[in-house]
């Protein structure tokens, strides 16, 4: 099937404004009759639920965490982009649009990206109005910094805790609506099924994570803002509870999963220290503003401490390879470059899987105090984890899975191929193409939540009779029974192997074969290993405790079971995409100097996969991508 994103036509500058006017509205007096289910309370979900509540819709918001303030958006450190051009350095909405399209390696939809760039400025205004304490100059004006993949200073930040402050802004707006009675919160609640009635999304089945009860909730529309799937790698920068479960349940009900092979491996994370490790910790990309990446020029120097290696014996490989962007090269490029140095046996630290990020020349230039003011909390975090003082010796960093550009397929209105099912933020595939630029995730989450869904959902609801289908419909009972049966099945395997050992095993398969560099051989290998591991899981997993009370093992088991199905689609997508682009690097498709080689003639499309059942190959649907405003070109940061 050829998919249509239903983008508005005409001059790109007018597309969103024209579309806003063309969309239908819901009468203010009727809004309260419509019930909207919001799953996830991160930046996209929190902002969306708050804004829909303000408009007067009856909103119910769900999250697996104990509070709506804890979604993993909170861990974003560096900042949020906006095209304010406060620094008179040549920024504009068009440049942000252009940088995002190029940064995504020409695999995103132009109209969606334009809208993102256009509303970026409204986001900053909104957050300031909410009392988000952005960094300021002594003049009282907002402060900016630059970020990877851009040559302008357009990133707004709140120390190294920007995600936290933006999320708390959205959470507070949401709290205000809870008080006003327009939003009802359901914390410690996990979505375990999507209820589809006659092809239309009409509700969800959730599991209460305290009592274990299955509950049905009906809604006139269902919105998923449930984040990304990189915990498929087991070790990632995501929170422990992040999973593909909600999105995957939607896929099992017919929603298409688009571009799952586009995963972002973030260049600046703390290297793994041992087998006990449960997650990897990100060090903000903003550090690359003042830190220089290097490894020893000679293998034999790798055992020495950094201070024993003379300046002339250091290879500042990003500055060498990409003179114009240097240490600010985009994430996919910086990550692959780090991997190359380590593959060349010039890595540093335990296991030789690490490169230095050195602040000495910046400390010499601007002083330790200013570096501390900019990144103090990151240096503290680094010291807590590694027991090393990065003011005195360089940090050691290594790439780690961080973000998923792929996600559920949506049209321009953020609606999936199932009518009534909307998808926001990292959970959808829409704006980042094959690679996301730094400080763009926060921008997308808030754009979708504050400024896109409030318009587009109205257009859909205007054609729906409120409360037409409720949880009395037979589909709801059926869904509850199926979800309970799956829980019972997990509890009754009574095998010998723990849930986390399966998750680790899956992560190893994915990291080694579907990670930073993939080949036909490695992907075919993964496609054999994943089903075998899945089969063992259902025969040998051991879930302790009871299903009618809080049970962390059982929660994890359900999520790992879904990852074991999703992983196969991810590897299938990576195998089919016979080109290298952005975060998807196929070793067969590279230039002589190791750069990614895109194939626009054959792969300039979004790949949306339809799940066909276990053991069956998923079916590919294509949405061709057209570039009318940015010329398709080889992405160069040299």
């Amino acid at each position, binding site marked *: 099937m050829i998919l249509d994103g239903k983008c508005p036509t005409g001059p790109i500058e007018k597309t969103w404004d024209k579309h806003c006017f063309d969309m239908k509205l819901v009468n203010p007096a009727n809004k309260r009759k419509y019930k909207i289910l919001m799953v996830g309370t991160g930046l996209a979900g929190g*902002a969306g639920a708050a*804004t829909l509540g303000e408009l007067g819709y009856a909103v119910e918001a769900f999250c697996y*965490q*104990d*509070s*709506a*303030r*804890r*979604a*993993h958006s*909170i*861990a974003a450190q560096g900042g949020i982009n906006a095209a*304010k051009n*406060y620094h008179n350095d040549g920024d504009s909405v068009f440049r942000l649009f252009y940088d995002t399209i190029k940064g995504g390696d020409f695999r995103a939809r132009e109209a969606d990206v334009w809208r993102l760039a256009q509303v970026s400025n409204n986001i900053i*205004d909104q*957050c*300031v*109005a*909410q*009392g988000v*304490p*952005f960094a*300021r100059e*002594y003049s*009282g004006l*907002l402060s900016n910094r630059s970020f990877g993949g851009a040559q302008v200073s357009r990133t707004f930040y*709140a*120390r190294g*805790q920007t995600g*936290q*402050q933006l999320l708390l802004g959205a959470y*507070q*707006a949401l*709290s*205000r609506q*809870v*008080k006003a009675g327009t939003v009802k919160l359901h*914390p410690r609640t996990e979505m375990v099924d999507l209820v589809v009635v006659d092809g239309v999304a009409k509700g969800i089945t959730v599991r209460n994570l305290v009592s274990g009860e299955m509950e049905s909730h009906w809604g006139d529309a269902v919105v998923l803002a449930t984040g990304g799937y990189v915990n498929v790698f087991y070790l990632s920068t995501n*929170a*422990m*509870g992040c999973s593909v479960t909600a999105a995957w349940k939607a896929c099992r009900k017919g929603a298409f999963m688009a571009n799952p092979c586009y995963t972002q491996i973030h260049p600046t994370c703390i290297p793994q*220290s041992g087998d*006990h490790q*449960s*997650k990897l*910790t990100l060090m903000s990309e903003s550090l690359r503003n003042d830190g220089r990446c290097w490894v020893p020029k000679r293998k034999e120097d790798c055992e020495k401490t950094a201070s024993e290696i003379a300046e002339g014996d250091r290879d500042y490989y990003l500055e060498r390879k990409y003179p114009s962007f240097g240490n600010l090269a985009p994430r996919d490029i910086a990550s692959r470059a780090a991997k190359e140095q380590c593959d060349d046996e010039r890595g540093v630290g335990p296991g030789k899987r690490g490169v230095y990020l050195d602040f000495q020349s910046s400390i010499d230039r601007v002083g330790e105090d200013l570096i501390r003011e900019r990144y103090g909390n990151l240096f503290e*975090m680094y010291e*807590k*984890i590694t*027991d090393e003082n990065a003011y005195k010796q360089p940090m050691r960093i290594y790439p780690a899975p961080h973000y998923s550009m792929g996600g559920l397929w949506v049209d321009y209105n953020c609606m999936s191929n199932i009518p009534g099912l909307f998808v926001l933020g990292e959970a959808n595939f829409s704006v980042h193409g094959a690679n996301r630029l730094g400080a763009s995730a926060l921008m997308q989450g808030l754009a979708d939540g*504050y400024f896109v869904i*409030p318009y587009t959902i109205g257009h859909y609801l205007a054609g729906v009779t409120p409360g037409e289908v409720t949880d009395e419909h037979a589909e709801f009972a059926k869904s509850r029974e199926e979800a309970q049966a799956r829980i019972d099945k997990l509890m009754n395997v009574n095998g010998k192997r*723990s849930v*986390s050992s399966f998750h680790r095993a899956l992560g190893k398969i994915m990291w080694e074969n579907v990670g930073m560099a993939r080949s036909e051989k490695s992907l075919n290998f993964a496609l054999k290993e994943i089903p075998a591991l899945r089969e063992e899981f259902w025969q040998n997993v051991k879930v*302790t*405790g009871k299903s009618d*009370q*809080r*049970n*962390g093992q059982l929660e994890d088991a359900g999520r790992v079971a879904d990852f074991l199905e999703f992983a196969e689609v991810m590897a299938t997508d990576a195998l089919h995409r016979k080109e290298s682009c952005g975060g998807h690097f196929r070793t067969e498709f590279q230039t002589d100097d190791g750069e990614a080689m895109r194939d626009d003639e054959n792969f300039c499309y979004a790949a949306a996969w339809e799940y066909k059942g276990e053991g069956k190959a998923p079916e590919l649907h294509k949405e061709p991508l057209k570039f009318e405003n940015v010329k398709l070109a080889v992405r160069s940061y040299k």
Partner: protein
Amino acid sequence: MDLTLYVWRQNGPEEKGKLEQYAAKNVSPDSSFLEMLDEVNEELIGEGIDPIEFDNDCREGICGTCGCVVNGVPHGPQEKTTACQLHMRQFSDGDSLTLEPWRAKAFPVIKDLAVDRDALDKIIQAGGYTSAYTGEVGEANQTLISKPDADYSMDAAACIGCGACVAACPNGSAMLFTSAKIAQMAVLPQGAIEAAERVNSMTEAMLDAGFGNCTNHYECEAACPQGISVKFIAKTNREYVKALAK
């Protein structure tokens, strides 16, 4: 290193709990406190014992989900550090650790070390926001905010809402949590207009939710993983007095 753990096990809010003894063996000093618990849990699962339930999520010290009392100190012995960022090199071979949940009237135990902190959300819902609607709100740089005020506001806003302050307080008070939000907003022009209403409704919600009041023990500041200062409590008291005049 090898450690002996005494862990609070409790099946539900109405059930009786007790300390159980477990051994943590071959713990890497580079592992985090929660990774140590993960490994103990793997052992327990192997022995057919229900693993220890504890809340956690981001494991980078920012989401505020984790936390338990370690040897009487919320989040354990390292200053300004959440349990997930506490690393085992802070302990020595042969140490005994007693792990308990946050203990406060407003935080009922869900299971073992996991507690219900909905009460903190109720305080924010009472007024921890500016009443700005999403939409056209004016250009961001139209509102100048001095750097000292912005920094002060950010110092307060850094609160992660973990509840360690409540667990540390002899009165089970959430005054540090509540005042951090009141102070963050009060010092900003956007938040100043609603300051009087905010301080009244948030402190009232705090008492309604079952938290105690503040009697200046300052245990909260000592326990806070973000180093939130008690100066915000003083600021809140001033805001409270100012509100009386309105």
